[in-house]
């Protein structure tokens, strides 16, 4: 035990420390409506992102922290949310007979996960674990650009790079070998509003959606922040004036 822990600490401490991805990863940058002090969400894009999530990613990735009722933030009406929730089967119970049962989802339910548990998720993915996506945006440095790059940087490995069975080459992923098969190819999902359905368009919509799942209060936060800062900057001015006034009778020396 002790020797294990000591060597563990040794390993841990000798590892490179700064969180910086895998050194030679290629990160592409884009403009995001939610960045900056006046940032806001692009609801139409988030709805499309949600659609891509449902039709592509939801097969492998859960979204545990999101309840259907939260979808109101994307601009869905109450009726639409009820309809979306009802498309899912949710396990509930036990009932009066002590049995678990399935029923159609309601707005108060959280989004059901694709796998019963982590082991089932690994078993279905060659031992790799598809992480929950609710917080992925905040769980990676430079979340927006990173996710955008990850989803659009699959390709052929450069000559000399070995890609083992069940792994895929991705220039944005740390180490360049990821166990997630390329999820997006472009035109994977048909958008009702005729928006850009290239791989780039899908990826951007997903980023807008995942920025929201990680930080649903982002707009409120920034809006409150602008008001609070305005007040505080005024307060700085007023209190400075008051200080100068009170100190005006103090002789310098």
């Amino acid at each position, binding site marked *: 035990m002790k020797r294990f822990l000591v060597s563990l600490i040794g390993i841990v*401490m000798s590892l490179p420390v700064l969180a910086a991805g895998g050194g030679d990863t290629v990160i592409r940058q884009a403009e995001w409506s939610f960045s900056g002090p006046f940032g806001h969400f692009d609801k139409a894009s988030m709805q499309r992102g949600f659609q891509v999530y449902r039709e592509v990613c939801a097969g492998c990735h859960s979204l545990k922290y999101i309840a259907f009722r939260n979808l109101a933030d994307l601009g869905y009406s109450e009726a639409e949310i009820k309809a979306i929730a009802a498309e899912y089967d949710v396990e509930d119970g036990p009932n009066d007979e002590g049995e678990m049962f399935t029923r159609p989802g309601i707005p108060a339910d959280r989004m059901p996960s694709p796998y019963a548990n982590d082991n089932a998720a690994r078993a279905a993915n060659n031992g790799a674990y598809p992480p929950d996506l609710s917080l992925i945006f905040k769980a990676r440095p430079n979340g927006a650009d990173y996710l955008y790059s990850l989803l659009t940087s699959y390709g052929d490995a450069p000559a000399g790079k070995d890609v083992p069975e069940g792994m895929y080459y991705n220039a944005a992923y740390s180490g360049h070998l990821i166990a997630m098969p390329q999820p997006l190819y472009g035109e994977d999902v048909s958008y009702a509003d005729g928006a850009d359905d290239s791989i780039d368009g899908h990826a951007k919509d997903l980023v807008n959606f995942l920025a929201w799942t990680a930080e649903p209060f982002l707009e409120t936060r920034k809006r409150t922040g602008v008001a609070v*800062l305005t007040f505080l900057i005024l*307060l700085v001015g007023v209190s400075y004036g008051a200080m100068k006034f009170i100190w005006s009778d103090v002789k310098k020396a």
Partner: protein
Amino acid sequence: MESKEFKNPVVSWIDHRLPIFSFLNHEANEYPTPKNLNYFWNFGSLAGIALVIMIVTGITLAMSYTAHTDYAFDSVERIMRDVNHGWLIRYIHMNGASFFFIVVFIHIFRGLYYGSYKAPRELLWMLGVLILLLMMATAFMGYVLPWGQMSFWGATVITNLFSAIPLVGENIVIWLWGGFSVDNPTLNRFFALHYLLPFVIVGVVVLHLVALHRFGSNNPLGIDTRGPQDTLPFHPYYTIKDFFGLSVFLTFFAAAVFFVPNMMGHPDNYIPANALQTPAHIVPEWYFLPFYAILRAVPDKLGGVLAMFGAIAVLFVLPWLDRSPIRSARFRPIFKIFFWLLFIDCLVLGYIGAMPAEGIYVLIGRLATVWYFAHFLIILPVLSVIETPRPLPQSISQPIFSAAGGGLAGAMSAPKEKVE
């Protein structure tokens, strides 16, 4: 203190029996304060306010937090998403810890520059160092509570340090954990202690203030006040100045909370703790980085731990290492240079703490560590003997020469308070 007459009869009645109002009046209203304090004297009251902010937001968080390995991470997410203004309370608490340390670090360097640790303020200084230690313990345990990857692995790495203690080390670690690894019992006791320690800090802060009010504040000239011409009543002069300082502080604080709340945190802490998956890079919170650098600078584990605690221990005995009777660096030309070298040294240590322990970083880390200790153990004692100080002014209100020094204080103080 004399019982004072108050206009309000109720206040008067109470004060006659329980002289609390006289006490407050004496400590806040009449309390004579040197008139030449610069803005570096704002950071004490800011630290007090930061402590109150931490306690208020902390208790509010505790109402919705669950200290169990299965629920802690989820309960913090619930606070963020479902509790009214939960995201705000949590971001204030999270960033509040960083700002608390920023304020306290500035407060400490202020003391180092102006010699505030010297007689008769040795105990005041030592109580301050004790507060720093308690803050570090509190922040370390608080960071474990959200039970993310960095929470778990940071706790594992730091608690393991105690296994370096000869003979009993391993037992101590098991005792700290309440088991054979960082697990649910660890989380529970960390929560209990994280709730307790801030109130212990409050207690030490009270002692710190009692010690302060015995001789009053030091000042940028580092000379004693010589009567009413040198002082001002604390209220309204310093209450308004502290209020102005507070509004500036809150502006920076709010900018962080509302616009870059995760800047000083680590993304990995948004991944739930996983004992089977070591993160690629385990880094402590930024305010521990200089100490982390010192820990890693010593090739031997026990030596590293001793050096890290030694870095704080030298602060404890600082009043007896620097024997120069001159307090303020303004009148100590050589000390002033070494002060700034120490300041840079601490920044270097902080940077090295964030870098991998390899190649040139190891060497720089070692040199910076040696410099840190040499400053306190060799340079200061020697300087106290060999340095020729510049002449001191006769009093705060009658300097014998114009604008002393400049430097740290001169650059920052408002023209009014400069002694000219």
